[in-house]
């Protein structure tokens, strides 16, 4: 612990000096704004957390770019997802970030506000018309575009078709009440009807409970409101009916996937990136549906997931090369189709959507959800990590029965109040 902090602090000092140097170099010259033609020979450094089929896809595309641009080498650094943010902060304070930087979309405003990213319009021209407005906004900070979206994802309801048939459920639930009834029907012995990831840490409890909360008009910052309490009540009903195991509070998204694959959970919440693995699971017949809402007239509002690529400040030559790669990778229908098909994402580039969704039918549901999805930092900005963690704790204490709904909501409201003040 102490050591990690020591490194961080040391690098903070380096950062102050590096920032000064960067300031100087940023003023010396603007990169070539043409945007056409091959990239100049040299190395482009890049960093991301893509694994499995996403890793193979991006490696393949980078090779293609190297072949097309003689003398250009892409040096890709992979950092595991859980350590990624720490690594970015560490490299940023040390002034040693890669030229092309992948960021999970909620992080973009924070990183852009520190001034270490280059506004894309200063590097060349991009064709921005084909992008969905919401997706493009993920790359914007104070009106300037700093990053392009890789594609979008969100989470939906996965259900086990065999178990649905066995207990005579004809279609996936559309409302919370139906979900509760179906989950009860599906619960037998060691098989639970429903499960979601309510574990601690980012990407688990808050991310997975947001679709329920937001569709019902609730907010992370108002746990004491009626809409928020209704959401907590729903989770409690699932537990009280024994249709969802209390141990979901220890489950990560990966754990939920494992339980579903092994048939121990009949319905789960998860993202499109797992379909490739589910398709390889023997004897598993599954379907994907939109996450149920409380009352039929509500619209599903899931959290918007997906990564963006930004260019960091360095020498004009480095920035220009990185821009060429970004332009080719994400501002070009052909490569976007290949990329998002391999990634299992809904393209943010509208003209690529049909081709990608056609190849992976499951994406249709996610594509529909993305239209009403909300970016996670919309209301909370830089406070999102802290406030979402407090909401997550409230959900966990209700599921484990440590606190009543009103006690958990009141306690969370107090913590949020002092965190926002």
């Amino acid at each position, binding site marked *: 612990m*102490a*050591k990690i*902090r020591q490194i961080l602090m040391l690098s*903070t000092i380096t*950062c102050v000096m590096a920032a000064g140097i960067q300031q100087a170099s940023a003023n010396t010259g603007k990169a070539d704004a043409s945007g056409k033609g091959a990239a100049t020979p040299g190395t482009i450094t890049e960093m991301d957390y893509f694994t499995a089929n996403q890793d193979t896809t991006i490696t393949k595309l980078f090779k293609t770019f190297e072949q097309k641009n003689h003398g250009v080498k892409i040096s890709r650094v992979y950092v595991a997802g859980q350590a990624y*943010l720490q690594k970015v902060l560490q490299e940023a304070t040390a002034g040693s970030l890669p030229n092309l930087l992948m960021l999970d979309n909620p*992080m973009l405003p924070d990183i852009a506000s520190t001034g270490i990213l280059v506004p894309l319009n200063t590097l060349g021209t991009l064709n921005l018309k084909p992008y969905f407005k919401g997706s493009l906004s993920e790359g914007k900070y104070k009106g300037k575009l700093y990053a392009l979206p890789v594609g979008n994802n969100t989470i939906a309801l996965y259900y086990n078709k065999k178990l649905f048939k066995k207990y005579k459920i004809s279609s996936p639930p559309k409302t919370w009440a139906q979900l509760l009834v179906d989950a009860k029907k599906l619960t037998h012995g060691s098989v639970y009807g429903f499960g979601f990831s309510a574990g601690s840490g*980012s990407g688990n409890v808050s991310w997975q409970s947001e679709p329920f909360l937001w569709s019902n008009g609730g907010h992370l910052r108002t746990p004491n409101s009626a809409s928020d309490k209704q959401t907590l009540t729903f989770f409690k009903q699932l537990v009280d009916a024994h249709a969802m195991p209390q141990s979901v509070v220890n489950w990560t998204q990966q754990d939920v996937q494992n339980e579903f694959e092994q048939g121990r959970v009949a319905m789960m919440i998860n993202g499109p990136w797992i379909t490739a693995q589910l398709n390889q699971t023997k004897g598993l017949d599954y379907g994907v549906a939109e996450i149920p809402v409380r009352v039929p007239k509500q619209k599903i509002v899931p959290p918007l997931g997906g990564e963006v690529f930004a260019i960091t400040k360095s020498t004009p030559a480095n920035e220009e090369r990185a821009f060429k790669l970004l332009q080719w990778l994400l501002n070009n229908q052909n490569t976007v189709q290949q990329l998002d098909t391999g990634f299992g994402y809904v393209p943010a580039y509208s003209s690529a959507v049909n081709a990608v969704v056609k190849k992976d039918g499951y994406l249709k549901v996610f594509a529909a959800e993305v239209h009403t999805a909300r970016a996670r930092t919309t209301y909370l900005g830089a406070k999102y*990590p802290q406030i979402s963690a407090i909401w997550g704790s409230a959900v966990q204490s209700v599921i484990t029965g440590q606190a009543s709904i009103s006690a958990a909501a009141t*306690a969370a409201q107090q913590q949020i109040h002092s965190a926002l003040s």
Partner: protein
Amino acid sequence: MFLIPLGVYILVLFGYPLYYSVSMSFKNLNQITLINGNANFVGFQNYIQAWSSSIIWRSFLNTIQFTVVSIIMQFVIGLLVALLFNRRFPLNRVLRSLILVPWLIPQIVSGAIFNWMFSSTNGVVNQILLDLHIVSTPVNWLLHPESALIVMMITNIWIGVPFNMVLLYSGLQDIPREIYEAAAIDGARGVRSFFYVTLPNLKVIIGIVLMLGLIYTLKVFDIVMSLTQGGPANMTQLLSSWSYTLSFTNLNFGQGAAVANGLIVISLVFTAIYLWINRKTAD
């Protein structure tokens, strides 16, 4: 005399990072100010906010419970095992090496193994308890704060026993046989020789073992992360893991440092008490 290396040890491993940690805790360091270097001095704000939350007191009590139980159990079991190995019997040397294994395995791996053993759905511990008809339904070990804390302590004790055993064993080996023989002539055998000969001669070693055990246990972090991640609802956080969560999940580096510094103060207090007791007994 033996305090000098210990003093240097504490100074190097606690003193140097302490300076950085203290300076961080007085600034409004978050993900943004960390990068652009615009962190302002905010006085004691981080300390006030961090130490007035309800989670911190839960973590504090957890840390005390975890540390006290772990150290006592590690020491008692470690001493019993050391006494066993102090006797001559076949395979003594082989078994003594084998018992070191838990201490050599990275804590994160031990944590993962115990997580699997205590899993509520398919853990081996529940299986055994069910087969022996001790429980009728699987126990949700990691779900309730009380039982999760017990699992954390069992894991930590399992890891710490070899360390205690090795140091105490070397201490036992250093006690001259003549003392036992002389004591035997004076009528001290068995349990009495343990209390009148062994323990007084082990005093110095026991002091070191308990002190190092305290420092190691206060720093325990991997076990929490691999077993519960501090959850559910932050009820199984230790000060170490809560400091980490504040820094790297909530990205509030200033408050994270404020908690970590509290932990260091606790360590220093115990070190001071230890030094004081030691000086008194040495006089």
